[in-house]
């Protein structure tokens, strides 16, 4: 829509797919991102937004042994994060700790706390419980769901339980319910499955093909947002898994990632392979009105859910993260390694009703 003058840019050396908000850092708005380069030496960048909010500063640059396919910051310790990496032929996942005095060291090494090495298949992601301190971790590979017990002080991680997703269900990712410590959603080719971690049994499923990404609404229980290859974004009320509560058109090409704002109700970001990031407003609190909404109504009567489309990217955008410290800021990462941090402030006051 408009030029990227509003965004603050930061360039990575190589291509990259994943970015994560450092939630545990309450003093700064910072993000962690890792590069994806098959043949070069990969790096993890710790980026911090300067106090004026006008600049992105590299706080730490750490080398990482392999290309990074997934990266997640620990929600209770800003120095700990997890990565999923690949050598091209094999996959691995590990928990890392940023060394204490990294500011003074010249080329600091990441300290590997634990490696999640029980996987035999391609690993997709590692999940932390998003709402607070919890000593469990989840890792998902193509076929299995692992629950780990992590002990940071002893630097160990042990498999607590493991469950196969069943025949012909290739898992592609997942999300941990921030409202329920025992509920996890996993995405696979034809559906979203829901698991109870106590019994490691499937509790529910939403039948939907080609889901790329799923994200729980931090504010509203039972609300899950999914992104799909061709058919856009769907918002589900998990109590009514038959049909979505709301449908958003998504992107011109695939919708790769969705993320619900941790603070403002119904504010959703989506990133797509059409090199745009879209900001949506789709409150589900008025869901009655939404489901009965007749499409025959003149379109003018319904406000366009699309608040803004950030199109100043030069390649597909795969990485997306809201800042939990400043919930009107988000970071996006396009495949060419460009991090853009933007504020959605200009679009908030108008419709979301935030001062």
């Amino acid at each position, binding site marked *: 829509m408009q030029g990227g003058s509003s965004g603050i840019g930061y360039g990575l050396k*190589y*291509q990259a797919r994943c970015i994560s908000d450092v939630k545990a850092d309450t003093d700064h708005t910072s993000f962690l991102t890792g590069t994806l380069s*098959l043949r070069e030496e990969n790096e993890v960048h710790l980026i911090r937004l300067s106090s004026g909010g006008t600049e992105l500063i590299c706080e730490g640059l750490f080398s990482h042994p392999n290309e990074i396919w997934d990266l997640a910051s620990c929600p209770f310790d800003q120095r700990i994060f997890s990565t999923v990496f690949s050598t*091209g032929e094999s996959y691995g996942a590990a928990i890392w700790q940023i060394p204490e005095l990294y500011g003074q060291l010249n080329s600091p090494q990441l300290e590997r706390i634990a490696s999640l090495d029980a996987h035999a298949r391609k690993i997709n992601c590692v999940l932390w419980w998003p709402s607070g301190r919890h000593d469990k971790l989840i890792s998902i590979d193509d076929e299995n769901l692992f629950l780990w017990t992590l002990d940071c002080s002893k630097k160990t991680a042990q498999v607590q339980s493991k469950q196969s997703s069943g025949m012909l269900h290739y898992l592609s990712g997942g999300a941990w319910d921030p409202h329920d410590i025992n509920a996890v959603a996993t995405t696979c080719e034809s559906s979203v499955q829901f698991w109870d971690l106590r019994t490691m049994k499937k509790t529910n499923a939403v039948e939907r093909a080609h889901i790329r990404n799923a994200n729980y609404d931090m504010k509203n229980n039972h609300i899950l947002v999914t992104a799909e*290859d061709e058919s856009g974004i769907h918002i589900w009320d998990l109590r009514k898994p*038959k049909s979505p509560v709301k449908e958003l058109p998504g992107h011109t090409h695939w919708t790769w990632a969705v993320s619900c704002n941790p603070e403002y109700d119904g504010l959703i970001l989506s990133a797509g392979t059409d090199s745009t990031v879209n900001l949506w407003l789709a409150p589900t609190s008025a869901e009655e009105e939404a489901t009965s909404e007749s499409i*025959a109504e*003149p379109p003018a009567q319904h406000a366009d859910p699309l608040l803004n489309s950030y199109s100043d990217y030069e390649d597909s955008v795969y990485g997306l993260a809201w800042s939990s410290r400043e919930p009107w800021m988000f970071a996006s990462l396009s495949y060419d390694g460009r991090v853009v941090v933007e504020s959605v402030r200009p679009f908030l006051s108008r419709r979301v009703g935030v001062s």
Partner: protein
Amino acid sequence: METDDVPLDDKAKRMRDLLSSFYAPDPSSTDNAPSNPGTLDAINTTSFDADQYMNLLIQKSNLEALLQRHVEMAAEIKNIDTDLQMLVYENYNKFISATDAIKRMKTNIVGMEANMEQLLDKIMSVQSKSDGVNTSLFEKRERVEKLHRTRNLLRKVQFIYDLPARLEKCIEAEAYVDAVKFYTGAMPIFKAYGDSSFQDCKQASEEAIAVIVKNLQGKLFSDSESIQARAEAAVLLKQLDFPVDSLQVKLLEKLEQSLGDLQLKTNDIENASMKSNDPKQGKVSDSVHISAHEGSVRGFAEAISAYRVIFPESEEQLIKLVQDVVVKHFETTEQYVKGRISSANLLCVLRTIWTDVLLLDEVLSEAVLPVFSLEAAQIALKQHVASTFNYLLQDISDALVRVNASSKEAAEEHPLQVALEASKKAVLQGSMDVLLDFRQLLDDDLHLLVQLRDFIIDWVQEGFQDFFRALYDRFLLLSGRNSSSRQDQGLTGAHGEKVLAGLVLVLAQLSVFIEQTVIPRITEEIAASFSGGGARGYENGPAFVPGVICRIFRSAGERLLHHYINMRTQKVSTLLRKRFTTPNWVKHKEPREVHMFVDLFLQELKESASEVKQILPQGLARKHRRSDSNGSTASSRSNQLRDDKMTRSNTQRARSQLLETHLAKLFKQKVEIFTKVEYTQESVVTTTVKLCLKSLQEFVRLQTFNRSGFQQIQLDIQFLRTPLKETVEDEAAVDFLLDEVIVAASERCLDPIPLEPPILDRLIQAKLAKWKEQNPISP
């Protein structure tokens, strides 16, 4: 004295004052203002002191003034003297005339007394004489009176005895009015003495009366009698204390029976008008039926009016009855309207009803039938409009569903084209027919319809508005776009997905057609013959808002077109997904031939192209557009950006070279890849291809390849290049995307060494030969 008061104004005034002061009861009140004796003006007051006055005068005035004053005073004194004299004279005059009057009165009174005494004497004598006459005649008069009374009594007795005979006579003469009068006259006597002296008489006359009652009843019920006669009979019966109510009820029942006959007739009319669809004989039989019906209604109206005269107080029942008739009429009409009928037929029915109503209104205007039937007609017409639109909607969706059915058989060469034409026709012709149909309603001069004109206009407009909304919903339902309907249609979607895709395209094009052709035509038509209206109030604006409908269908067209492209790319996506997730790319073997997914991909594209070709128009300037995309506007923009980028990248030389080239290329992509889809064959196909290639790139990015895997991709892409360019409008973009896939593959390759060009060429040639073998006819 009074005559010369103009020059002597002062004088007269003074005179009058003096006279009034003379007659005034209290002289002191005249000079209520005690004037100051110290001034010269005090001369006229009671408190006048002559000495003081003199002193004052002397003191104040000089000699000349005094002399003057003297002269004045002398004159005044003289004046006053004459006044006084005149006053005295006048008083005296009045006194004299009063004495004269008194004297005359005295002389007149003296002769009166003698006359009065004479009068008294005469009155006394008259009185005594009249007393004498009175006493002498008293006896005789008493006798005369007695005799007279006896005679009257005798006459009455005679009447009673004669009554039976007289009644007989009346019956013979059918003079029932007299008979009833006689009988009712005799009734008090019969009541008093009927059990004793006049028993026989009473019996006889009662018998006679019974006969009369019977006759009267007969008369009342016989239709041949004149209405007056029947009314009279009813009145007489009532006078005879006959229970009229039961009669009334009976008569009413009779009327209700005839109502049933009327109802049947209405059905006949329906049948007739049904038949009248056949134009030759319809008219004749129609009119026959109508006239028959009219006859019966006329009869009914007469009966009603008769009844009304007979039982004037039964109006309410009659009104109810008549309204019943109308209600039933309209009930059948409503039933009738539910079916598929033309406005002409409805008009026919309405006309019949209206003539009935008019006929009935003549005899019973209190029933306010016109108003009543207006309301009923309003409902019926509204239903008619609604049902007409319903049938139109049904027609169109039938035409569209036929697409599904017929293209399944695939017997026709261009099933989609046929379907599109059919549905276009269904929409345009259908709505034109509907309008024409409704125009008949408007053009008719039937009073009923003229009054409802505004309403009809509004309904038709509203009808169109709702109709197009419903049509839009139907489109979405058919396209399976509605997620709620997707579950209902799960089955059809599963086995007829290919067909469905074509249908979506047809719907998209149909939406455009509706927006661009049908709506303007209808708007025109409505403006021409359905303007006005406004019964629903101007603040709401006109009921039919073409702008809104156009907007709906424009967005619908776009959505459907996107949906079609989505459906197509989705299928290719599944294909690609399978291709890229199944093999182990890291352990790929050396490429021997072009992979078969390419065939499938091209097959899909061909299918889509054939569908698109049937439905969408060809783009106008194919060549021109291609040059456009490489053209000045795009490149100028990207150049500028590129310069920007270059300066920046100079500062960051550390960046890998790959990234730089990558960035430079990406500007081109930004300009070209995701353009707006247009309603042309090329645009749709190009968009589909672009989206598929982009998907291909994304799939490649998710894998890691060994050298052979990379070479396989290179080979497949190289092969795709030629056939894709042939089908696609925007060659540059496709070229770029294909390059992009190879770049992505090389990035994801552990050992990116491309195939030697000769080997590449050889493999492609082999594939082409094979391809030609398999599709000998295909271009």
